[in-house]
């Protein structure tokens, strides 16, 4: 369980994100995975982006959604742990700058709270994990091994 005064930040520069229509698309450039966060998840991400600690996130969610019957702290904590596990956010020291609750100020009452889910997409990962081992000599690819019999005219000769 993440404690209420824990602070986090987006794991930039390897993680980038954009939000449209209450859906946040997050891309981990290092792994090739990308993610979707909708509704309350997008709100939680926005508060993390703005430097909010866990209690700020909970306050924002309560201001924006009808949360009756939900253990908000537990739901938020579970999502934060998933975001940490995917290296999308990282812990940070609490700075002097106070949280600026621009998300809460745009609160819209009456939206039923739905527990946030982090949808993960991995179809692009394989592209980033290609094996670079190819027919290479000590000069490095794309130079072919000298004993390959490949016709060559060294471009250095033009200098």
């Amino acid at each position: 369980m993440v404690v209420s005064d824990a602070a986090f930040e987006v794991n930039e520069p390897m993680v980038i994100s954009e939000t449209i229509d209450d859906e946040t698309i997050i891309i981990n450039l290092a792994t090739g995975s990308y993610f979707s966060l909708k509704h309350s998840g997008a709100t939680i991400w926005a508060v993390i982006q703005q430097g909010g600690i866990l209690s700020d996130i909970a306050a924002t969610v309560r201001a924006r959604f009808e949360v009756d019957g939900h253990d908000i702290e537990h739901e938020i904590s579970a999502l934060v742990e998933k975001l940490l596990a995917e290296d999308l956010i990282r812990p940070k020291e609490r700075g002097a700058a106070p949280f600026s609750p621009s998300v809460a100020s745009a609160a819209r009452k009456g939206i039923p709270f739905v527990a946030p889910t982090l949808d993960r997409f991995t179809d692009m990962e394989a592209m980033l994990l290609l094996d670079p081992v190819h027919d290479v000599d000590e000069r490095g690819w794309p130079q072919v091994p000298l004993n390959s019999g490949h016709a060559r005219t060294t471009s250095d000769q033009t200098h």
Partner: protein
Amino acid sequence: MHEPLPTRRTNAQERFDDFFNRALDAQERAEMLAGVSVRRRFRLANSDVEFRLAHPALEPLFCDALAHIEIAASGEPDFSIHIWDESLSGVEAPPPCWSRDDLLAYGEIGEFIDAERYLYVDLDRAMVSAGNRRMRSAAVWIRSPEHLAESERAAPLPFLLNWLASEAGYFTVHAASVGRPEGGVLVVGRSGAGKSHTAIACLDSDLLYVADDRCLLGTKGRPESASLYSTARLYVADVHRFPFLQRNTKNTFQNQDGKVVFFLNAIVPERLAPGFPIKAVLLTQPSGRRDTKVETALAGSALLFLGPENALRSPSVGRVSLASLASTLRSIPCFRLETGTDVSQIPRTIAGLLDMLPESETPLP
């Protein structure tokens, strides 16, 4: 020799610049040895781009898919791409400026990429592309046509062209685009969702075709699609649904994915458009029913289809492209297009939607 570059460069920049200059010289040497130089010019994302090919055998490989945007040479081009082939010329690539470890990352070599420079190393296709914006040129080495997949002939230089077009705010997107000169739609969806099917169905209608699988999306000012390749792909089993293509036995080839590739510029040149303003985004999926229908949708799904692919395939422009694509998608309405088995309904439904949408005259901030 080419123009010397300014001093105060980092070690990586010096190494890149040395490689780049040697590559340009190598291409020049390949042209000299061939005794012929081929010049083809294309209008790409509002720029005149000249391909300088060191052998005529390279023309079909790099130019056929771009024939629909070919223009007559007039004055100096905005950018030139110098291409040579080692197997035809005997002129090999310069010694690499990258290390073996750099190749652990796919394609783009980030250490050498900055506001001016670009380097893409494609191991599988045995191909290197290096570009320099300040010198308004790029050099492309290939080992031999045999090393290039058929996909290159259908869609040549996708990464280099994405980098080149990004300078003007255009990004390659995995999307189809059809419409009218005054406005069209961007059709997005996962592979197999029916993007090609939708776009090809429109070839037999009053709607014009910009792309069936990949096009440029202009994100500066008014959103607009711009044609990149005039090749369309269909699974062999689907070709019979489009008799006007089935009748065509020339200007096609079958690729390794089991799809037939059609060079549309040679088949239906009058149905192709260089691009148009985008009035809406359509999330396409097959309905499984006879009829096609359209309903409103949220744009987040469109960004999910368009953003990650561009950002991950071309990380050098990925941060900018994701923000630009998101900004563009916020400015246009999004719909879900459920395509039916009656192919003729698809263009009619899209045309009806375009009739209802207002003109897309509002420029982005």
